């Protein structure tokens, strides 16, 4: 009788420890978060990378990819976004490049040539194994920005004003979530990227 009681107690304690360990290891709130919605097939694009190579969205099938829009001459809020993504890049460890990629598309293709983008990327510590900076013809850029729902417009003095939007595309090419502006939570962003690897 006593042995059975000890055994039951041991089972209970073990289960409690296991539960505690699991709850510690699991990303916070991950089990409570509903899956990211499936918004639509992500708009395709065919652009040119910082090293002159052609890049399409289809190249990223099988990976989770974050697509964002930048311009290197921006001095106001844009410089917040790229360092934030660089921070998340480092947090992703070995998954970055192998399973998760970033794509930053310029909305100022006339000034942001492949060379300019390369320098910009290096200045923010971008790891080219998983992060591409893309440019293209003004028409191609305008088209892809519009299809992602980004507004970009050239002002009279040649600057470009634009809305900030970072989109996550799942391994099947489906747009799953978009982040407005540059103030989004990097931890939530990282969690959302990882959640798609587990689906």
């Amino acid at each position: 009788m006593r042995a059975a009681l000890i055994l039951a107690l041991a089972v209970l304690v073990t289960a409690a420890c296991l539960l505690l360990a699991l709850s510690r290891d699991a990303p916070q709130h991950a089990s409570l978060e509903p899956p990211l919605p499936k918004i639509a097939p992500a708009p395709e694009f065919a652009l040119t990378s910082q090293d002159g190579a052609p890049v399409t969205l289809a190249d990223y099938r099988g990976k989770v990819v974050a697509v964002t829009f930048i311009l290197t001459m921006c001095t106001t809020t844009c410089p917040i976004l790229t360092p934030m993504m660089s921070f998340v890049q480092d947090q992703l460890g070995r998954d970055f490049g192998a399973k998760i990629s970033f794509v930053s598309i310029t909305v100022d293709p006339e000034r942001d040539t492949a060379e300019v983008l390369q320098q910009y990327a290096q200045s923010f510590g971008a790891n080219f194994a998983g992060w591409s900076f893309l440019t293209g013809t003004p028409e191609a850029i305008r088209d892809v920005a519009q299809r992602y729902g980004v507004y970009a417009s050239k002002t009279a003095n040649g600057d470009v004003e634009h809305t900030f939007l970072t989109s996550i595309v799942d391994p099947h090419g489906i747009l799953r979530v978009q982040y407005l502006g540059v103030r989004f939570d990097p931890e939530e962003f990282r969690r959302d990227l990882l959640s798609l690897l587990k689906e």
Partner: protein
Amino acid sequence: MMYTMQDRRRFLATLSSAVAAGLIGPSNSVAQEAPPETTTIRLARNRSICIAPQYVVGGLLQAEGFTDIRYVMTDAGMGQSKMLASGEIDFTLHFSPILLIPIEAGEKISIIAGVHVGCFELLAIERIRSIADLKGKTVGVPDLGTSSHVFVSSMAAHVGLDPAKDINWVRSPSISPMELFADGKIDAWLGFPPEPQELRARKIGHVVVNSSVDRPWSQYYCCMLAGNRDFIRRNPVATKRVLRAILKATDFCVSDPAGAARRMVDGGFTTQYDYALQTLKEVPYNKWREYDPEDTIRFWALRLREAGMIKSNPNKIIAEATDWRFLNQLKRELKG
């Protein structure tokens, strides 16, 4: 303790989202992102510039598939609500109470999101230091039933005054009440951008209430996105796309107020860049996700009842004239 509260709030929010997601079900499928049912959209334009997101949304609406974006001239008060109900405009950002009064009267308006707080400032002569001090004083309004009349009446009733008897309303449809106030002909006046900015720059009067920062007004949406109910019923995809564009435009106002002010000037919505920029920096445009729009309906319905302007209870208005489906979906799809 702080973290515990945060976690609990987050847990409840997550739970609500999960429940909502379950209820919405198939509407979260890829199929929901079909092209809009109509490519024409008509929005209001008027002398108020606090509805800035509505004025900078053009490019974002184009990105959503709208090719014919029209701005229809309206007043900034009840006339705008009536044009919305009659289908002369499809959507507008409008002051919540000015939507609730015609809704109670049976007008076909649906409120689909809260967008921003603030906008209004009550300026008064030195002797007036609080709302209660308005008793027996002259307050200028363009007319009875306008936004400023409804708001001041609500504030007065909230502190125990009878707005109909205790305030001497000066109706001035032709001369702006702001000018009457500047000329010393009235004691107080409630305005929305760009007029309070202009009066402050001229150092005339002092601010008694600023609805961007003063409670309880700052805790509820000023402007909510409302649509013609038939349009929303016929065009659910277009409705969601309009709301998404407005929310992005709202974010643009926060991220790049100078760019948004420039867009408003370039688009001919205002000639006063400085006041537009000041408005964009002062009005809290970053609250669309934070507050519960239903709380705003409840709050204003109760204030309007206190002021004797409506009789319905808030739940009836919420049941009949709100539609949060699109907002709830976009809260999941648009983070940040």
